[in-house]
């Protein structure tokens, strides 16, 4: 192959191309069902994932939903306006507030919640009573199956002004706290409920990774006189490190995702100043106030930055761990 190219490269590539076409044609002829199988998925992909990409241009147009026969038709009939909405967006204080809130909430979640499942998994691994092990795993895992609305319902009852938390607080002599409307406490509630829902699930990821550590390492360490702390520090943690790094890269790649559905369910106008994140803002001004173009500009900014972050995360993961996210 390599020798043929210099002789007559054009003819060779042409021949190559034709044989490739022939091969493809033969494949399609022999395996038509393969393509039939793909059709439903491709149909949904096209309609729900690729067609919306066409709608991105709303951010560059003065979109008016009533111009066309339907919302999609109206896109092409609206006037091009260039970067006007981006200028409006980047000069508004709202934009920076929402971006800041998103990053603050994401960072709080990473700082407080990222280490938690690692600690859980390491400690759970030290428990050798099978029944207890099973009970803990089962119990901490349940909230993963609860929807955000359900979790909101549970905590709404608990933190309501006559709920159990406030009863305890007042009996200790403090004032009642309204967790849902006080900005600082609201963020605490958001971080806590996220931990409540996700810790069990993530613990099991780390636990699966711990079980793949070679147990003879521990026996060898015991013979060398290493105590339990040293075994955890020198064997368990290094064994977990690839998983920890992968999860951290993924989490940071997703930093713009501060938990849309959770905040949408939990928040209210009293905490917009600290809890309004990019996604809730896009939803509120876009589908709430019908300011489609501004909302789409914000959304596009979000998608582009998120795309760069995720591709960056994948590149780092490939280099560092030789594992691609997709």
């Amino acid at each position: 192959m390599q020798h043929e190219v210099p002789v007559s490269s054009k003819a060779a590539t042409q021949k190559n191309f034709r044989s490739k076409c022939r091969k493809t044609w033969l494949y399609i002829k022999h395996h038509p069902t393969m393509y039939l199988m793909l059709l439903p998925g491709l149909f949904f992909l096209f309609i729900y994932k690729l067609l919306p990409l066409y709608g991105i241009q709303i951010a560059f147009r003065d979109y008016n939903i009533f111009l066309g026969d339907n919302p999609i038709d109206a896109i092409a009939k609206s006037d091009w306006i260039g970067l006007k909405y981006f200028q409006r967006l980047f000069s508004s204080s709202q934009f920076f507030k929402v971006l800041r809130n998103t990053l603050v909430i994401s960072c709080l979640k990473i700082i407080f919640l990222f280490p938690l499942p690692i600690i859980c998994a390491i400690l759970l691994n030290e428990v050798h009573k099978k029944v207890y092990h099973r009970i803990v795993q089962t119990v901490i895992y349940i909230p993963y199956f609860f929807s955000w609305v359900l979790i909101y319902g549970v905590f709404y009852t608990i933190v309501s002004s006559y709920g159990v938390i406030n009863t305890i607080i007042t009996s200790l002599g403090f004032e009642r706290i309204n967790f849902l409307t006080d900005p600082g406490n609201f963020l605490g509630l958001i971080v806590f409920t996220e931990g409540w829902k996700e810790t069990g699930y993530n613990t099991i990821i780390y636990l699966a990774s711990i079980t793949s550590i070679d147990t003879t390492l521990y026996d060898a360490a015991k013979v060398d006189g290493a105590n339990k702390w040293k075994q955890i520090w020198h064997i368990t943690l290094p064994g977990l490190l690839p998983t920890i790094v992968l999860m951290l890269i993924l989490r940071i790649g997703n930093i713009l995702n501060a938990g849309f559905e959770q905040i949408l369910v939990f928040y209210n106008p009293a905490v917009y100043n600290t809890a309004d994140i990019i996604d809730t803002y896009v939803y509120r001004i876009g589908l709430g106030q019908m300011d489609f173009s501004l909302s789409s500009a914000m959304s596009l900014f979000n998608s582009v930055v998120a795309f760069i972050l995720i591709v960056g995360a994948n590149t780092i993961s490939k280099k560092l761990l030789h594992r691609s996210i997709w």
Partner: protein
Amino acid sequence: MNKRHYKFKPDKQRSDHSERTVRIIAYVFLTVLCFLVILPCLNVISEAVSPGTDVLGGHVFFWPTGLQFENIRYILTGTSFLHSMFNSLIVTIFGTLISVLTTIGTAYPLSRPDFRGRTIITFLYVFSMIFFGGMIPAYMVVKTLGLIDTYAGIILPFAIVQFNMFMMKNYFEALPPEVIESACVDGAGDLKIVSSIVCPMSKPVIATITLLYAVGYWNNYFHAMLYTTSTKMQTLQVYLKNLIANIQDTLAESVGSTGYSQNLTSDGLTASAVTMSIIPIVLLYPFIARYLVSGITIGSVKG
């Protein structure tokens, strides 16, 4: 032998000591964690069934102070709880069925190394996974198709979740290729290979994907809220959110329809609706949990 054993004893004792400390810390930490999960649920259930005076007086903690079912009865009979649960069931059952079939149908061709068009189609799925068109255009598509307030409107946008598809594709790729090749040589068609060879060999991943889709459909709030406008079409999550948001109205209606009762309280009604929504999950949980555990392992190993 005896001598050696003796020689190591001091070391062993020291390591036993640290082992005990770690174990005590583990038991305390994990037990506290379990209580943090259980206590909120117990509190909600207790609020639902305790007498109204105790609920209002803040005397209910983690165990019912008495038993009354007026709140739960009103939630079940006086509100659209059962109807929204029915909607959720429809969405979950049909959605999961469509999703799993679509996902298998997509993952299998893309997992075959000789499949023509594999690169470009895989790229489309990857790209659409990492670049999001935005919720406004997505909403417009559903609106243009006239799917607002239909089951299809809630289900079809999630008919294929790329992440699940890639998990399944990775699993298919790891199957022994000889089995599929020998079936090819025997003249089996592609559909036959998928249905009678690939699927039976991939039961764990199919179970996991089924569960992931089902949980996704059941728990989805935002899209179910966005794509429905009538009470008739609302799913359980939308119902629950609306109930909590308008709990004072619900309380007034409940008093209006069943007559005044001390036991009917806003906290009691909220807690009852939440409790009734938790029960199906807790009942099904033992049957489904182990599939998700195996699913996490599949997902984390294959990335």
